[in-house]
C-alpha cells in the first residue's frame, strides 16, 4: 500500500472515528448523510451509461461510483475527499482493483480570512468550466467536450492553490494561483498527468448571471511524448444562465515546442428548457492540432455536433440521451448514440 493510500485511509478512519461518537444524523437524497455533531457529511454520486458507437459493439457500464467525505473540524479548516471506482463494472466484465479505483480529490482548505484561502492536496485542475464541475449529475451531456479531455491537459493537480475573492463594482472576482508537483506527490496518478505545473485562474462575474473566466497553465506532462517539453495553455470561457436557459463556451490553445502537440479548440453549448423538467441540449465542438490519445499521435481538424435531451425529474437525478456526429472524428470522438442515468446520493 502506498503512502498516499495510507494517508487517504487514515483520513477516512479519522472522520469515521469522529462519527462514532455522535448518534444524531440525517440523510437527504442528493445532499448526503450529515452528522452535525461531528461536522461531517458523507455522500457521492453514481453514473450508469450506455454507448453505441458506429462501427463498434455497444457497451453499458457503471462509469463512476464516487464517495464524498466532507469534514469541518474547525471554522477555518475544511477537509474533503472523493474516492472513486471508474469503469469497474461493464458488459465487458467486472474489475475492482487499483486499475479502477482512484483518489479523485483529497485536500484541505485553510480559510485564512474573508478574502483568502489555501488549498493543499489533490484537486481538480481549474481550467475552464467543465473540468471543475464534470460530475455526471451536474453536466448536460454523457459525453465530455474534447477540449476538456485529459489529452489536452491533466484533470487533476497535486500541490497547493491560493484562492482569493474580491467584490469589484458590486460583482465577484475570483483569483487562483496554483503549483503542482504530481511527479512526487501522487504515486497513484493516472497515465496522463502532470509532471509539474504552474497555473492561474481568474473568474469575473460580469453580470449577475454571467461569468467570464481566463485560465493559464504552464506544465510538463508525465506522458513520454510530452516529457521533454513544457506546454503553455491559454483558455477563455463564458457562461450565462437564466430561468433554465444556459449558454456556455470554452476556448483553449495549448502550445508546445517544435509544434509537437499544439492544440486549438472550442465548444459552444446551449440548453433550452422544454417544460416538465426536460431540456434540449445542443453543442458544437472544434479541435485542431496534434492529439495524443491511447498512445497514438494524430494530426487532424475535427468538427463535432451533439444533439440531446436531458430529463431532470428530481434535482439530484438526471437522465440523458444524445447523438454525436462529426467530420474527421472517427479516431478520438466516434459518432454514436449515448444514454445515461446519474444521481447524487
Amino acid at each position, binding site marked *: 500500500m502506498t503512502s498516499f493510500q495510507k494517508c487517504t485511509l487514515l483520513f477516512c478512519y479519522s472522520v469515521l472515528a469522529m462519527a462514532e461518537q455522535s448518534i444524531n444524523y440525517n440523510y437527504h437524497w442528493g445532499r448526503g448523510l*450529515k452528522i452535525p455533531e461531528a461536522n461531517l*457529511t458523507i455522500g457521492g454520486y453514481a453514473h450508469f451509461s450506455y454507448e453505441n458507437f458506429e462501427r463498434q459493439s455497444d457497451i453499458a457500464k457503471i462509469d463512476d461510483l464516487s464517495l464524498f467525505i466532507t469534514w469541518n473540524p474547525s*471554522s477555518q479548516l*475544511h477537509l474533503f475527499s472523493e474516492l472513486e471506482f471508474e469503469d469497474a463494472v461493464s458488459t465487458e466484465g467486472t474489475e475492482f482493483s487499483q486499475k479502477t479505483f482512484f483518489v479523485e480529490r483529497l485536500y484541505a482548505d485553510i480559510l485564512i480570512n474573508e478574502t483568502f484561502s489555501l488549498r493543499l492536496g489533490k484537486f481538480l485542475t481549474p481550467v475552464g468550466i467543465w473540468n471543475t464541475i464534470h460530475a455526471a449529475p451536474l453536466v448536460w451531456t454523457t459525453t465530455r467536450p474534447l477540449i476538456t479531455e485529459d489529452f489536452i491537459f491533466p484533470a487533476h493537480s497535486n500541490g497547493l492553490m491560493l484562492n482569493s475573492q474580491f*467584490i469589484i463594482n*458590486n460583482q465577484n472576482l475570483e483569483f487562483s494561483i496554483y503549483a503542482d508537483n504530481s511527479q512526487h506527490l501522487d504515486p497513484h496518478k493516472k497515465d496522463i498527468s502532470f509532471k509539474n505545473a504552474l497555473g492561474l485562474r481568474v473568474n469575473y462575474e460580469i453580470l*449577475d448571471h454571467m461569468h467570464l473566466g481566463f485560465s493559464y497553465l504552464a506544465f510538463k506532462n508525465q506522458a513520454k511524448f510530452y516529457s521533454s517539453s513544457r506546454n503553455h495553455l491559454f483558455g477563455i470561457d463564458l457562461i450565462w444562465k437564466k*430561468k433554465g436557459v444556459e449558454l456556455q463556451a470554452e476556448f483553449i490553445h495549448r502550445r508546445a515546442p517544435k509544434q509537437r502537440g499544439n492544440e486549438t479548440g472550442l465548444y459552444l453549448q446551449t440548453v433550452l428548457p422544454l417544460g416538465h423538467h426536460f431540456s434540449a441540449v445542443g453543442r458544437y465542438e472544434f479541435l485542431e492540432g496534434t492529439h495524443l490519445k491511447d498512445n497514438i499521435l494524430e494530426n487532424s481538424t475535427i468538427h463535432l455536433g451533439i444533439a440531446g435531451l436531458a430529463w431532470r425529474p428530481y*434535482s439530484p437525478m438526471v437522465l440523458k440521451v444524445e447523438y454525436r456526429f462529426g467530420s474527421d472524428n472517427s479516431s478520438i470522438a466516434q459518432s454514436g448514440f449515448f444514454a445515461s442515468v446519474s444521481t447524487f446520493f
Partner: protein
Amino acid sequence: MRTLILSISFALIVPSTAIASELLIITGKETAEKKFNKKKITNIFLRRQLINQHGERWIPVNLASHHPLRKIFSETLLDQYPEELENYWNIKYFQGISPPYVVESQEAMLRFITTTPNAIGYISSCFKNNNVKVIFRIALKSDKTQKCNDLKR
C-alpha cells in the same frame, strides 16, 4: 364587554391588513461585523463567503422550501428562482459545501438567530423584534408585498 369585543376585533383585524413591505436581513445582537451590502449578504447565503473578518464561520439560515417568504427572498435578494438554486446547490455539494440550515417558520428563525452566534437569516417586516439586529433592508416591490397574515409564522 363592548370594550373587550372591540379589542378582540381590533386584534384580529389589524394583523390581517398589515402589509409586509420589507424583507429584513437579520443577525444576532452580538454580531460585531458592521459593514454589509447586498453582494456580501448574497455571498454569505450562497456560501461563497464562509467566514467573517474574525475567522468565525457564518451560519446562514433559510426558511423551508414551501414558505412563501423563501421564494420572495430567493427572487429578491439572490435573483434566482428556487429551482435554479437547486442546481447551484448540486454544484456546491460536489465541492463539499452544504446549503444553509433550514427552519420551518419566522418564529423559529428568530429563535435560531438569537441563540446561535454568527447566524444570519431573514424575516418579513411584520416579525421585527428587538432581540435581533437588522443589517439590511430590502423594500419589496408591489407585486411581492403580502399581508402579514398570509406569511406563515
